[in-house]
């Protein structure tokens, strides 16, 4: 079953053969799934991850140090055992370079991460009082509660009925009752992509805080842990596109600015500390929501509010104050680390605004913001990140049909590191091939695009995307059957990566058009597996 390279252009009659029996397919899937367990450490999207101390990754500067493990108040941070960055060499995936000496004192780290500036009204309340000596009126309380929804989908039984016990076993992930009923268990479920069960566990755990089903509108207690649970729940709801539920649950949180969400409100618990209980990523998710809710009037306002907050913090740091504007001495290392963190958060928020703008087809705004990120970076980007930004710019231009995209793709090419080895002096790299292919499609040259994607496929990068895009090109060239074969190939070779909403949407479209009975069977299986695997929204209908 292990073909070396895909038969990219087989003789035409090969495509007219009866499709390979599905048992083969699933043998292949299960064997692949077995090897999947030795996952690699996610090296990328370091936004808000952490790294080894003195290295140069802005998105990772919040890494806990060895000795900080036990101090981490809420979560016992488990060092990933599959780490492949054991050596201290610079991780090529780092997005920013910097020359600062960084701080690694856990207490400082907490302050930096949870710093936030309360609104004037909230600030007044917080200065005058705390939980010890004051009771907030109801309208100043944050009183969330989860919607009464059970996310359990009995898909595993379906899977067994389609695949049989043995093959289905490879896909079996833990159920809610097979994991510890705490954050660790929740983490396990998320790592297995069992989002439905993970959501159910958040329901259970939040009920213990008096924020379970039916408890919205009743006063309850907030802690860092409860906020982390809420963040996790929202992140998962976004992943499964449960917009109705999430927008209902979001109402109680309002602007995340009520006094009971600030650390200084709980003097008896946190002593003389300042900051918010709300994880920054939670703030961002809530700000991103309006674009997914049809009734929204201004999809940007919350995002820009967050951006303004971040900018205020940066300006406080620049002016020798703490993040939230208090006049307290910080060490240079501490201040620099904080700046890095908040610059990275600023970039992250701007990314979100750009995504929102693209989603709204507001290309002018997206282009302006991205141009600003490219031309006036707050920190030094790695070459790869710079190239990605330029590629992104080109792609946004292409979406509005502007062939000036080409200029950005060229700029990205020029940044290519000069060939390190002997070969490939003028050979296009993966990124160049993809960009060239997209441009060819814009010019209706699907043949050329196919060639570029094919060359990209040979390189060891996102092969599923290359295959999918090759299939798409074939389809536009009138080769429906070949397109289908390629996509089936992709599923066979990379079941774990390929069985997702996007690729299924394509294969679904092709199958429908081809309209043969065997396809429907296979499509159903793909759906069940991928749905079980990823909780993707139902697109079969």
């Amino acid at each position, binding site marked *: 079953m292990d073909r070396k390279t895909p038969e990219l252009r087989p003789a035409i009659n090969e495509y*007219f053969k009866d499709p390979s029996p599905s048992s083969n397919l699933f043998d292949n899937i299960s064997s692949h799934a077995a090897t999947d367990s030795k996952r690699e450490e996610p090296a990328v999207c370091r936004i808000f991850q952490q790294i080894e101390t003195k290295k140069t990754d802005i998105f990772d500067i919040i890494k806990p140090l060895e000795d900080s493990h036990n101090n981490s108040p809420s979560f016992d*941070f488990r060092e990933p055992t599959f780490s492949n960055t054991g050596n201290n060499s610079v991780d090529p995936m780092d*997005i920013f370079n910097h020359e600062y000496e960084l701080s690694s004192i856990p207490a400082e780290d907490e302050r930096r991460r949870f710093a936030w500036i309360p609104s004037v009204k909230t600030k007044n309340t917080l200065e005058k009082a705390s939980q010890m000596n004051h009771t907030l009126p109801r309208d100043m309380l944050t009183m969330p509660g989860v919607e009464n929804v059970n996310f359990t989908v009995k898909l595993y039984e379906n899977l067994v009925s389609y695949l049989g016990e043995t093959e289905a076993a490879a896909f079996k992930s833990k159920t809610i009752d097979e994991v510890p009923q705490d954050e660790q268990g929740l983490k396990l479920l998320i790592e297995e992509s069992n989002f439905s069960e993970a959501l159910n566990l958040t329901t259970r755990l939040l009920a213990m805080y008096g924020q379970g089903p039916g408890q919205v509108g009743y006063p309850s207690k907030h802690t860092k842990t409860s906020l982390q649970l809420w*963040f996790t729940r929202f*992140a998962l709801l976004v992943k499964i596109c449960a917009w109705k539920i999430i927008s209902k649950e979001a109402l109680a949180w309002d602007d995340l600015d009520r006094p009971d969400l600030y650390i200084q409100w709980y003097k008896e618990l946190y002593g003389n500390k300042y900051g918010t209980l709300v994880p920054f*990523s939670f703030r961002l998710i809530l700000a991103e929501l309006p674009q997914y809710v049809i009734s929204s009037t201004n999809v940007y306002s919350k995002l820009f509010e967050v951006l303004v907050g971040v900018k205020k913090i940066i300006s406080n740091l620049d002016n020798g104050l703490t993040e939230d504007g208090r006049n307290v001495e910080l060490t240079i290392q501490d201040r620099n680390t904080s700046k890095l963190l908040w610059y990275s958060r600023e970039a*992250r928020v701007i990314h979100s605004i750009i995504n929102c703008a693209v989603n709204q087809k507001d290309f002018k705004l997206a282009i302006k913001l991205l141009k600003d990120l490219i031309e006036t970076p707050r920190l030094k980007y790695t070459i790869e990140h710079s190239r990605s930004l330029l590629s*992104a710019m080109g792609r946004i231009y292409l979406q509005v*049909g502007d062939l000036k995209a080409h200029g950005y793709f060229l700029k990205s090419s020029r940044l290519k590191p000069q060939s390190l080895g002997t070969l490939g002096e003028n050979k296009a790299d993966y990124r160049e091939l993809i960009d060239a292919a997209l441009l060819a499609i814009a010019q209706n040259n699907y043949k050329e695009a196919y060639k570029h994607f094919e060359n990209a496929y040979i390189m060891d990068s996102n092969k599923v995307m290359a295959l999918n895009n090759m299939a798409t090109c074939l389809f536009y060239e009138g080769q429906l059957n070949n397109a289908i074969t390629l996509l089936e190939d992709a599923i066979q070779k990379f079941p774990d990566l390929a069985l997702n909403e996007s690729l299924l949407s394509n294969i679904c479209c092709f199958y429908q058009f081809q309209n043969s009975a065997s396809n429907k069977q296979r499509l159903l299986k793909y759906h069940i597996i991928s749905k079980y695997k990823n909780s993707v929204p139902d697109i079969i209908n």
Partner: protein
Amino acid sequence: MTSIEVKEVVEHPIKLRVMRLGKPVMFNSKIVTCDSKDLPGAALNAHLKKDVTTLADAETLAAGSFLMVPNVLENLYLGETFLCYIYLKNESSQTVYDIILKAEIDTATSHIPILGPKAFSKLDPYASIDVIVKHEVKEHGSVNKLICQVEYDRKHSFETIFSYRVPKPLDLKTKFYNTVTDEVYLEVQVQNIMSTPISLEKFILESSIGYDVNSMNHLLESSEDKSIFGDMDILDVKETRQYMYRLSLDKTAEKNPTRTNNLGKLDILWRSNMGTKGQIQSSPLVRQIPELDDITFSITYLPDMVFCEEQFDFTCSIKNNRNRDMQLVVEVSDEEDSNLAWTMISGIQLRLLPPYATIKTVFSMVALNHGLQVISGIKLKELILNRTYSYNNFGHVFVTQNVS
């Protein structure tokens, strides 16, 4: 799937399916990240990293390159290309012989054959014939149809009809301003009435023979033709742009070109999603020819600024618009409150002006006061038909003090 129209014709062993193709779109998953100290740890970021739709090294930007055949198609607009997948499949276990496939576009006014008739000697069981047809849409309206006809086995035939609407992409409004010197200013408003933002790749006025075009849509003080609309050629949904052109009679052309009322036409090329191209030409831009006076009197040279109490000259051109000779006498007279005074003899007789000829005359004045002053007080007396033409308030000069 709105893009698929399937006409099942049950009794035929071969079936025809038709799908209009729009450009592929780039799909992006929802992006969720967190600090690695947050509860989900590295899991969310790992999911994002692994996701095949993201852009490596900038995963938090939704700018991946995962292509998807669009589920919902954009409208097809006038000027764009109709692209269609025709899929003919033998769904029986019998070989079908002598297949003839034909496709044509049927609009309100015309039938345009776009495929065939194409003959295939046979179609094996479960095999297919795949054809992509293209057609540039030159007519808007709601009654456009793609009609595909299939004949097989020399006796059977059926047809599939795929209808589609073709709305107008752009709304064009024009306004003309005629000047006495026979120039025309043209104002064009173009509005994007499509459902998607576009980029205007080309927007030019192609003038008719006899007219010179001066595009007034670039910044004057820029070295390289910088558009007044900025760097981006993007025209958002419902956004309007206003272009301005000055058309003058081509001076190199024959002396007295027949005045045409067709100024030219607009040539517009745009692109939208992933380079979807559209191109239209406007119908001829026709202006109302203004009724010409007997004489066209216009300034050809006048200093912007003159010094107080110093004489200055200006030049006017006088054109005979009639098919007869004119014998003109120039009279100048000082207006009562005028701050300008004539410093020339009144009553000069010009040489005989033949039909359609032009003569240039120099006038001299002196400024008596500072500020912006109006020139008035010229009369042309035509001796043959004994008519008088008066010209007042036809020019301005700015008068300043000579400090040197």
